[in-house]
């Protein structure tokens, strides 16, 4: 009597079963390919979607670099459609020194690890803060910038301590950032309002959807300097961290090349030049020494 019903029910269960089975299957197969990837650097191109070695990148003539496209002044797209910013300035130099074309991949904070692990990009240069959790998933090269967390709020209702927040006050964060992880871990009672993209978070903050915005202090300082009516009430929260390029776990050739590159660039004070070119307008000269890390130290 319930033939159609039964059919549909079994149909649904089969969907669940199939998806489950394929995902389980993938769990084991992906871990086995991870082992293969770390064990062997010169895997044939194409056979392993894990990553491309330095030679493979050079041979292909193009490097895929993941950057932000909506995070001014670090990685954004200007009015002529060109990528620009502190991270991009560095990326351009990498392309030049490798002698390859650059293919920029627009990334969101939450996709960065995923992009590397699935080999969608060779390098992530998207204001990627070095943390222990992340270091288990990807390999970081030498750092090129200092960072801590900061909290910006409107001038007329400055948030100076996270302890005096009201029960209903929401703090805006961006999904997949260190600010999110830090607040989730250390202030589990604070209500977070999470966005995917920088542009969305900033617009929501301007619109007054949250009492404050927590993010890298570089970013919130820039915001308060560029937009009137905002103050960074908490300039430094949590540990002092660094920002570094990241590559897929086990991609040693590329990692070593990047480390050498950063050391070499240190001798010509490259990142100071980068700062002056891309960040000076926003921060002025006073932040140069606190922000810039030269030669990886």
């Amino acid at each position, binding site marked *: 009597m319930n033939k159609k019903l039964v059919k549909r029910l079994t149909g649904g269960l089969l969907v669940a079963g199939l998806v489950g089975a394929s995902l389980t299957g993938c769990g084991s197969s992906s871990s086995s390919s991870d082992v293969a990837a770390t064990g062997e650097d010169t895997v044939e191109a194409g056979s392993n979607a894990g990553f491309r070695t330095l030679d493979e990148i050079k041979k292909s003539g193009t490097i895929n670099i993941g950057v932000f496209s909506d995070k001014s002044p670090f990685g954004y797209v200007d009015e002529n459609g060109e990528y620009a910013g502190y991270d991009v300035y560095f990326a351009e130099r990498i392309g030049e020194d490798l002698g390859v074309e650059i293919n920029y991949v627009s990334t969101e904070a*939450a996709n960065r690890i*995923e992009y590397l692990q699935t080999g969608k990009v060779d390098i992530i240069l998207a204001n990627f803060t070095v943390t222990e959790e992340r270091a288990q998933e990807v390999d970081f090269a030498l750092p090129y910038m200092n960072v801590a967390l900061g909290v910006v709020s409107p001038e007329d209702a400055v948030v100076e301590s996270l302890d005096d927040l009201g029960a209903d006050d929401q703090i805006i964060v961006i*999904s997949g950032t260190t600010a999110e992880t830090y607040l989730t871990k250390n202030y589990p009672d604070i209500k977070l*309002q999470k966005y995917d993209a920088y542009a*969305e978070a900033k617009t*929501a903050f301007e619109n007054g*959807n949250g009492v404050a915005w927590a993010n890298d202090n570089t970013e919130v300082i820039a915001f308060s300097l560029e937009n009137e009516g905002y103050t960074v009430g908490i300039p430094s929260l949590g540990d002092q961290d660094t920002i570094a390029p990241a590559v897929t776990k086990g991609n040693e050739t590329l990692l070593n090349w990047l480390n050498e590159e950063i050391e070499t660039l240190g001798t010509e004070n490259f990142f100071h030049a980068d700062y002056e070119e891309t960040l000076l307008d926003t921060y002025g000269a006073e932040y140069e020494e606190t922000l810039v890390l030269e030669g990886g130290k």
Partner: protein
Amino acid sequence: MDKDILIEYLPLYKEALLLTLKIGWQGIILAFVIGLIGSAILHFKVAVLKSIVGVYIEIFRNTPLLVQLFFIYFALPKVGIQVTAEACGVLGLGLLGGAYMIETFRSGLEAIPVIQTESAESLGMNNFQVLWHVILPQAITISVPGLLANVIFLLKETSVFSTISLMDLMFTAKDLIGMYAKTIECLFLLVVFYLIMLLPISILGALVERRMRYGQFGD
């Protein structure tokens, strides 16, 4: 797949499911109300209102929900109209759904033979009584399969809520992937929870469709 991780994430997904359902149902009820009123306006060809409903349908059926939400949530505050994320989700879903519900109800209304209206009138019923006692009960019954299809469609559409900071199922999955990179587990739970939410409705749809066929006389 790591069982511990699945167990660890389970409560987060449960919470997300509740939020998705909460906003989803509020939006669907709004859509239902808009649908009833709008279809009545179209059916009885109410002057002026008829054209407004027409324009409304065209606008909301020809733009993506994501863009509608972006506009309501990010753009409107710039001209002084502030909406919370939850209200925006309910409003967006209700407006989008309303445009589809109107069409569903209207085809239900049109399916009822004119002779019934005429008979009811000859029995001395007024317009409202005809609508309330004769037309609507039948029209809604006829619309039920279409309605359930709309409900599934709208609950699926809730997956774009993540962009306006609502912690729905999709957002929870994306967020966890971003923080801890346990992609497989997160995607698996995501699929399972959508099945939990939508499979029963899909089954109900099949059941109702069968029942309805018994409910029809003659033809």
